[in-house]
């Protein structure tokens, strides 16, 4: 069972959006996906249409099997919300992870045993215990960054290994996704060019700045369902496809929808 962790040294870069839409993307292609929210903000559930007052989550059973906390969102799509928590609960969870190197294998046994399930995990920005602990089982890390001047320096720091050391690097290692690219803005374009020229090997893809993303989140649906022609949705599908190729798991040919541009109307 492959694990993809989505993390970033910086907040507000669109991690949660990317996790949600990557999950939708894989699910549409026929892959079973479990999204796990390790961010105490407990916001990922909102992208999947869970009501605000639904406060269930694995935080309530930190040391037992998490499977009962798994909520079926849609065909192929499952979610493990963090749940509503207090500080003690969070400290307890961190301690449990720290003390047991096989923590994830224990709590997510049933999920891990199913080779056909893809796990996508979302984390709080910067350092978190969960992120450090999952490195052992993570197959690939996706690091979203914004296409702004600050990201250029972050990018170099990430590559030199100083920033987020020990947090990323499990499995195939980490890949950057430039989020909210906007070719109407000159600086944005230059950052893209710089990244493409200098970090091509570590650049997984780019996601356009597209109001469809915001609108879709507001309606608690996938970007694709909000706007079938959405460019951001198309970009994320491209990224999903690349991840699938990198991880070597089979995306059934033809079932992964790379944005049908036009319905064939005769």
């Amino acid at each position: 069972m492959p694990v993809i962790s989505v993390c970033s040294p910086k907040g507000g870069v669109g991690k949660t959006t990317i996790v949600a839409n990557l999950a939708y993307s894989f699910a549409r292609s026929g892959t079973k996906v479990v999204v796990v929210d390790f961010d105490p903000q407990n916001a990922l559930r909102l992208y999947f249409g869970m009501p605000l007052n639904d406060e269930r989550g694995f935080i309530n059973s930190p040391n037992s099997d998490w499977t009962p906390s798994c909520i079926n969102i849609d065909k192929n799509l499952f979610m493990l919300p963090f749940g509503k928590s207090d500080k003690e609960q969070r400290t307890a969870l961190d301690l449990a992870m720290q003390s047991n190197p096989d923590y994830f294998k224990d709590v997510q046994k049933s999920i891990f045993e199913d080779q056909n399930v893809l796990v996508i995990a979302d984390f709080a920005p910067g350092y978190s215990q969960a992120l450090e602990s999952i490195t052992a089982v993570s197959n690939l890390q996706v690091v979203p960054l914004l296409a702004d001047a600050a990201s250029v320096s972050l990018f170099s720091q990430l590559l030199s290994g100083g920033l987020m050391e020990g947090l990323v690097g499990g499995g195939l290692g980490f890949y950057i996704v430039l989020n909210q690219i906007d070719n109407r803005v000159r600086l944005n374009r230059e950052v893209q060019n710089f990244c493409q020229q200098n970090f091509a090997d570590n650049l997984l893809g780019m996601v356009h700045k597209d109001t469809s993303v915001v609108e879709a989140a507001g309606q608690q649906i996938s970007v694709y369902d909000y706007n079938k022609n959405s460019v951001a949705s198309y970009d994320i599908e491209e990224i999903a496809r690349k991840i699938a190729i990198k991880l070597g798991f089979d995306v059934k040919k033809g079932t992964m929808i790379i944005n049908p541009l036009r319905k064939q109307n005769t």
Partner: protein
Amino acid sequence: MRHFFSYLFFIFIALPILVLVVTAPMSSHNQFIFGLTTIGICLFAHFFSKKHFVSLAILFVAVISSTRYIYFRITQTLIFPSWIDMFFGYILLAAEVYFYFILILSFFQLSWSLKRKIVPLPKDTSLWPTVDVYIPSYNESLEVVRDTVLAAQCLEYPKDKLKIYLLDDGKRKEFATFATEANVGYITREKNEFAKAGNLNNAMKLTNGELIAIFDCDHITTKIFLQATVGAFLKDKNLALIQTPHHFYSPDPIQRNLYLGRDIPAENELFYGPIQRGNDNWNAAFFCGSCAVIRRSALDEIGGFAVETVTEDSHTALRLQRKGWNTAFLDHILSGGLATERLVLHLQQRNRWARGMIQIFRLDNPLLGRGLNFAQRLCYLSATLYFFFSIPVTIFLFTPILYPLFGISIVHGSFELLLAYAIPHLIMSIFANSRLYGSSRYSFFGQIYDYILSFHLIIPTIVTLFSPHHGAFNVTDKGDTVDKSYFDATSVRPHLVTIALLIFSGIFGLVKLQFPEFFDARLDATLLNIFWICFNLILLIAAVCVGRETANKRKMVRLYLETPINVYQESGICSRTMMRDLSMSGCRFDNFVNGEIDIVKDPIKYIEISTDYKTFCVPVERITGKNENESYIRTMFKDLDLDSRREFVRLLFSRADTWVRPEYKPDNPFRSFFIILLCIKDSFFKNRRKDDIHVQVVGHNE
């Protein structure tokens, strides 16, 4: 030794036989049979084989027939009853002799055509010479010049070896600004001495590339231009010039007003094909002012571009060749330009060409002076001599009215004998021309081109012939469109007067025949002249049709290009769709059928296009596609910045396969004449053919 025997054979056996064949007197009956037999054999050979030596044999027979005719004319038809008959008789003979020489010269030029191949450049780019690209401009609009400059920037050549200069003789501020923004050199000068040649010479002083590529400001180059041409300079150290065809993507006035969308070879097809290839075979390819590369050291040797004539291009080539430099013609269309838009501009341009070539004839006659070999002299002579055509063409036009109107009999002798000599001569020369270059110019169309120009060129021709230093360079305007259809009566007034005169004299001739008691008119001579008048009338009417300027709404090149694009709406919603076609002014793409997108309330503001080189956004305004049931949305670009514009130029004009030479059906003189009649009919009844005239580059997917 072998050569010696060939010469002996030629002088003592072949030549006397030829002289006998040409001079042998025959009765009209025998001459008819002789003529018809030669035509029959040639026709048989024509249908039997397409081989080149058969073409040469047919040419040879055509030359013999014509020579026989001219010999007959000179020896047997010049006995005149009065001095006035003699006056006109000798004028007609002079015109005929002129065309006889032009025929022989053009056969010589066209007989062996060189199909030159591209010489590839070495892999090591450090061996590539440095190139300066000159784009001279005088009064053309920035609109026209801009894309030419941007296309030059897309040339695939090492950046450190390529410099582009905009040579502005108009001293225009917006041109200087544009050059700075586009990052190309800008050169202007105090006095505009010697027009274009002076402009180029001035730039030569300020730049230092080993090679100079010249593009007129409306000739948009493809990216492979230099890679296709520069190699030849490395292979042949003695090569001074390589010329490529001028290809026009907009219809010229003749195509637009007379051909009305029919597939008929354009006027320049003959020159930028068989003629230049033939010249190249004799190492006499001409420089045509644009779309060419010249070696700087060769130019230095002749003191820069020639400034003495108004056709600096041909004259420069002639001078280079006198110094022993080689020239080349590469028959690959590597650039595209705008044709002259209107008849009156076409006339102006040809006026300049005619004056320039006659100036060369007078001031630097290719037959005289040092440095050229015999073949080169003949090729250059043919080019300069050709531009005297207005005088003999006018003579041919008016000669047939002399007999019906005034009873002036200018050809003496038996009517049957005249026909027996003239008919094989005419048929064989039409036939040989048709066989030799029929797919580049259809039979009789050359006469139409000549008729369009003749009246307007006759005075400049005579003035220049006697006063070759007279006259200035005039610039051909390019890039404006004909908005409304109108009739250019000024340009075709002489034609209309001539038509009236021809019709009147034809009718008068018939009247004369009706009343033999009052008039003394011979039936055969009158009918022959009326037949000749009718033939002239048809071609002249075709020439007048060109004066009916039909509106030309679009001058843009549109490319069918299927590529995904992203469309931004005002709210920031960004959607992907498929572009279907693109021009410099706008594009068309698939409408969104899913219904989530409301392009009325939330208008489209930008589109984002990705090419092999870059991704960029351009502001747009939607024109059509409001309703969901419309398949496509059309948008118009607003305020393209230079970088975006350059990318569009790259997509639209710069591809190696942008231009393809159109293929035409082989010529058939009967069909060709019938097409002329159809063109006239359609022009009169305004039957625009359905297919749009503007040229489209079709079907390129990336």
